[in-house]
């Protein structure tokens, strides 16, 4: 075994990790503490980390006081789910094409897909706004779903392509020799074997779609009934009296679903996320 740490090295490492994690987790801790404080204690000076009368009350009262909160959470889920479905429909065949077939312009197209990752939605906001207006999609779910999906497709293609390349091609060739058509092979041979990879892509896409619901909703939608949670809460900020403990409670409830998914599937998610950045 390689040299062991001396005691002061171990202390140093734990101290370093503690500092590092404090930076990462402090906002969550702060949000939790604020959500637990009674409203008249939030604005108390001097600052105290723990104040008297902490309770979960805000988590119950927020459903009445933050208008449409349940609706916002539902919208967030609905938008992220639709984005994931569209991405999968587009990506599964595309990734198969890139992984298995040889055709003119394949590498150039693959690189072009990669290049899409370099342009953020905000850069293209003007023509996108006009496009949504001309298609009559402003103030509909579609205005948030379609652009959201487009920007998640490239990473998903890369992720699934590298997974499909690891599947032995003999299986498909055997089916081909037996006279199966190519659509049949895609649906009945590839889809079942690639399921684990597709699930990873679906989870990564869902989390991405859930995380990025701000710009398009802010710009293309002014119908409060359709807003996803981040924009719903953001609009709440402008009001005269912001009920901060309930806003923080709502924020925490809004991130809970992704945190739960993450805790159970973190190994796959980390693999998915890092593969998206590695690009080979």
């Amino acid at each position, binding site marked *: 075994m390689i*040299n062991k740490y001396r005691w002061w090295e171990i202390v140093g490492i734990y101290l370093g990790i503690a500092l590092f994690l404090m930076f990462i987790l402090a*906002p*969550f801790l702060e949000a939790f503490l604020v959500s637990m404080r009674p409203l008249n204690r939030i604005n108390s000076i001097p600052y105290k980390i723990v104040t008297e009368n902490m309770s979960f009350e805000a988590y119950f009262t927020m459903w009445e006081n933050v208008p449409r909160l349940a609706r916002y959470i539902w919208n967030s889920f609905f938008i992220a789910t639709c984005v994931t479905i569209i991405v999968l429909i587009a990506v599964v*065949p595309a990734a198969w094409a890139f992984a298995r077939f040889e055709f003119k312009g394949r590498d150039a197209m693959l690189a072009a897909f990669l290049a899409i990752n370099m*342009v953020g939605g905000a850069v293209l906001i003007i*023509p996108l706004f006009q496009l949504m207006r001309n298609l009559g999609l402003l103030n509909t779910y579609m205005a948030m779903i379609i652009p959201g999906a487009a920007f998640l497709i490239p990473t998903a293609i890369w992720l699934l392509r590298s997974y499909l390349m690891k599947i032995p091609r003999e299986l498909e060739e055997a089916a081909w020799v037996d006279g199966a058509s190519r659509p049949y092979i895609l649906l009945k041979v590839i889809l079942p074997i690639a399921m684990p990879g597709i699930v990873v892509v679906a989870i990564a896409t869902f989390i991405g779609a859930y995380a990025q619901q701000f710009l398009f909703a802010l710009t293309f939608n002014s119908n409060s009934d359709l807003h996803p949670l981040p924009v719903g809460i953001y609009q709440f900020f402008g009001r005269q009296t912001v009920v901060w403990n309930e806003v923080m409670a709502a924020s925490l409830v809004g991130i809970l679903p992704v945190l739960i998914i993450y805790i159970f599937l973190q190994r796959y998610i980390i693999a998915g996320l890092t593969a998206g950045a590695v690009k080979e």
Partner: protein
Amino acid sequence: MQAMGGRPNVFPYLLLLPALFITLAIVAWPLLETVRLSFTDASLKPTEEFIGFANYEKIFSRNFPEVIGRTFYWMAISVSLKMIVGVLGAMLLNSAVPGRSFFRVLVMPPWIVPIAIGVFMWRWMYNGQFGMISGVAQHLGILAGPYEFLGDRTGAFYSTVVTDVWVGTPMVTIYLLAAMQSISPDLHEAAWVDGASRWYRFRRITLPLIMPAVATMGLLSAIWTFNSFDIIWILTEGGPRGSTTTMIIDTYKTAISRNRYGEGAARAVMIVIFLSSFAAFYFCMLSRMARRSLNNDK
């Protein structure tokens, strides 16, 4: 799969159709349309006219050079901090101490939760009267009184940087950690047998071997940071007095808040030009690395 199907393949193109259709409509066409609009005086009025380079002359005679400088300064500080904190974090999480797999799980949340919601939390933290940072700093005697972090130009500028670092660090850390873990333990053991200290091994083995990963991540991170919109918009909307107005924020304000599509498009085209040069750099680096690893395999 040449064996499958004799005639020239149309099939792969059919497979690509859905993905191509969406990305062409939502990314490629808008990109070209932005370039076209940048040469027009498009606004809310129903007609638009071709006006040549007038938009570009206009923006460059105004505050635009200053905005470019600020954007690069903002990006440089943010990316350097992300890389430094990321390397340190990856080093710490790579050390063989009990509990490390648990600590690794705790790193990721800022990256996976909705960015906007994470930024709401920061907005409260930066509050001078009741926020945690100002409060704790006063308790520790660092600050004499309440300090509104988003209230003045310098404070707002660096506060948005810190939040951007917070969002970006998990990805950098996890990516570099993966790079560190792919280093063969044999290398470290051989060096250890020869009497190399831990610091020496870090400098001569770990650091050179993760350098390609640091370079790749640094460049990707620069591209993402350049595109960053949500963080600044939610914290300051580009204020106070323009101190956090980066190129993206500037474009959005011109185009969407003030409905000057032509002028906004000219600003967006400048962003695309910068982004393309980053992208070109990134692709060159990837292909250089691919070639080098091929040579090593021989």
